[in-house]
């Protein structure tokens, strides 16, 4: 009896579910956006689903950036990848090398007959994701840059002018000392240490991270982060740490929370933290360009992006790809982009969205949100500042961070650590080169 009821219930459920499943093509989107950003993604999906009836976009949170990337790789190996996967900039080289596993966005749009103009997108963003024949391989989605935040209330308390944030690292040192002296538990902390202090530092000072245009001109690249400029910068950070001016918080965004709680007076981290800071901080803050060393020629140049893009996986039906292409067109609409940009702090990916936000007067009312855009476009990008593309950089960045940590611990001098970082990093690069010949 019970089994019969159950069977009937199942049959009824099947009947109810079936028409919906047949009418719409489902598109899987794996992403790594948690918290507020996750809500926003669901909102975008809802908007797209409401805008048409043929396709149903299903966003799925798959854990951190490396986690969703490996999940997609594993799914590809098992023969059932998602349509779209969000991959962080560090994974770019790996994805690019995977010809046959990915469908380039330019190709996708052409096949689907969707209008598509790569020139409509911000060059600072697309440069990172375009191959050397000018094909855009992935769809820009959430791009940010490393910027500098100060707690204005803490500045006032320390007798500093809150409207004159330090521009150079020399001025920064003075401010850090004063903050510390005023009783601030932590004068300065950072999120994403390698991204801010090695990768963005290099672009900002126009020094190379690696040969072959930071790996963008070929996979036979080697790291160059043991240059005098890099060593000097890391040694300076270690000195700051010794003086109690710099508190190390970890390899991800842990530092952001210590700034929001008021514990730390200054922060360098992603521009995408601005929404969170605005919501959580019980003090006045402002966002600025990263400090620079005024004795390094050409600084400040321009900073580089972080964040992620959307990659389309191969092996799906042509009809599905039409849906993906439609979604990408929807995602690029200025109003969708402006909403994403203003609510998250990620930069708008199209020029039209930027112009629209500017015209709306948003930046006057919310100073700081456009800092990343200006910093990315501070000067025309050089070979050292248009981005980076290193194979196996998930491991490579980890090596950089390990070596920086050993300097901050006082276990290694900066020069030795940076030499080791280059040596260990190059082993990873050679392995990647051998695997992707």
């Amino acid at each position, binding site marked *: 009896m019970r089994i019969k009821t159950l069977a009937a219930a199942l049959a009824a459920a099947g009947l109810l579910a079936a028409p919906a499943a047949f009418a719409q093509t489902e598109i899987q989107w794996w992403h790594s956006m948690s918290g507020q950003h996750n809500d926003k993604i669901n909102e975008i999906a809802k908007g797209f689903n409401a805008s048409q009836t043929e396709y149903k976009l299903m966003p799925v949170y798959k854990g951190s950036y*490396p*986690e969703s*990337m*490996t999940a997609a*790789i594993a799914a*590809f*190996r098992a023969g059932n990848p998602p349509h779209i996967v969000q991959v962080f900039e560090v994974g770019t080289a*790996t994805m690019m*090398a*995977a*010809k*046959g*596993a990915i469908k380039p966005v330019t190709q996708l749009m052409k096949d689907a007959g969707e209008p598509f103009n790569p020139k409509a997108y911000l060059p600072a963003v697309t440069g990172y994701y375009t191959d050397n024949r000018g094909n855009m391989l992935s769809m820009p989605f959430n791009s940010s840059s490393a910027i500098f935040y100060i707690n204005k209330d803490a500045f006032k308390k320390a007798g500093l002018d809150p409207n004159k944030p330090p521009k150079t690292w020399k001025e920064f040192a003075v401010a850090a000392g004063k903050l510390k002296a005023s009783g601030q538990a*932590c004068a300065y902390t950072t999120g994403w240490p390698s991204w801010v202090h090695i990768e963005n530092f290099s672009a900002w000072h126009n020094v190379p991270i690696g040969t072959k245009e930071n790996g963008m001109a070929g996979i036979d690249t080697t790291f160059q982060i043991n240059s005098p400029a890099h060593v000097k910068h890391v040694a300076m950070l270690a000195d700051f740490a010794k003086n109690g001016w710099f*508190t*190390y*918080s*970890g*390899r991800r965004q*842990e530092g952001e*929370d*210590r700034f929001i*709680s008021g*514990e730390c007076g200054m922060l360098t981290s992603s521009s995408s933290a601005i929404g969170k800071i605005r919501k959580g901080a019980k003090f006045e803050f402002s966002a600025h360009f990263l400090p620079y060393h005024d004795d390094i020629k050409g600084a400040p140049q321009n900073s580089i992006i972080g964040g992620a893009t959307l990659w389309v996986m191969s092996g799906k039906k042509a009809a599905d790809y039409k849906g993906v292409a439609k979604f990408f067109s929807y995602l690029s609409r200025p109003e969708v982009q402006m909403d994403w940009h203003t609510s998250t702090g990620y930069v708008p990916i199209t020029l039209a969205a930027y112009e629209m936000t500017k015209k709306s007067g948003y930046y006057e009312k919310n100073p700081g949100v456009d800092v990343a855009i200006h910093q990315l476009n501070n000067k025309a990008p050089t070979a050292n500042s248009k981005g980076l593309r290193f194979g*196996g950089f*998930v*491991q490579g960045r*980890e090596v950089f*961070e*390990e*070596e920086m*940590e*050993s300097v*901050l*611990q006082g*276990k290694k001098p900066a020069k030795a650590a940076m030499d080791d970082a280059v040596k*260990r990093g190059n*082993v990873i690069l050679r*392995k990647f080169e*051998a*695997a*992707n*010949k």
Partner: protein
Amino acid sequence: MEKRVVFRSAWLPYALLAPQIAVTLVFFFWPAGQAIWYSFQLQDAFGLKTQFVGLENFRALFNDPHYLASFRITALFSFLVAISGIAIALLLATMADRVIRGALAYRTLLIWPYAVAPAVAGVLWAFLFAPSIGIVTYVLKKNGVDWNWVLQGDQAMLLVVIASTWKQVSYNFLFFLAGLQSIPRSLIEAAAIDGAGPGRRFWTIVFPLLSPTTFFLLVVNIVYAFFDTFGVIDATTQGGPAGATQILVYKAYYDGVKAADLGGSSAQSAILMLIVIALTVVQFRFVERKVQY
């Protein structure tokens, strides 16, 4: 005449064993074999291109000073976790064994942490010791200790050892308590009458009689420290800072799963397999001889 049940059929015993053998083959031997096969290969992340590279992955590993350091860290970590886990559990068990009133409540409470998943245990302790908001950090800072395990390797090691040990103490406690209760009272009373104090009674009677339990726990704890503490480390330090808590199994996971370097990770797994086989042999051949059953 001895009565024995004998299978006369030639195939029935194998048929009865088949499910077990199938499970072992599919879930243990197959993956292990695949790991060994992968360890001789170089693959790109997506498995589109595969090359046979012989022992290249192993050569690269042994040329990497950080991999060698990982051995030292694993040895230290396992030693600390196994020894402190066993010592604390033994102390608690002897105490709990003497309690008469409310014994059940004590015992239940002491067994509780075992029900906590390793990752949860890790998060719990990480919270207590969190560099900026942890309650223990607060006390330590008041007493002038610069506590920041995010940067200080020794402190990070201490944290993962505490979290891993805390979880394992309950398990050890259970076995020790059972062991203690199976020791005949008369032996201890006889010693007491002969004038042996509590300390002497413990070291000359109780401890030797507990040696089978201790040996068993030593094996189990070392295996635990080698493999099961993965959750604790993943939830807290993730191998950092500067590789200070990167035990072998965590590095194998990181390289394989997060960094998509299957060849290198498989080579590490193969080495881990060898280590565990060696450890087990050593333990049963040499340590077990000292055990009095």
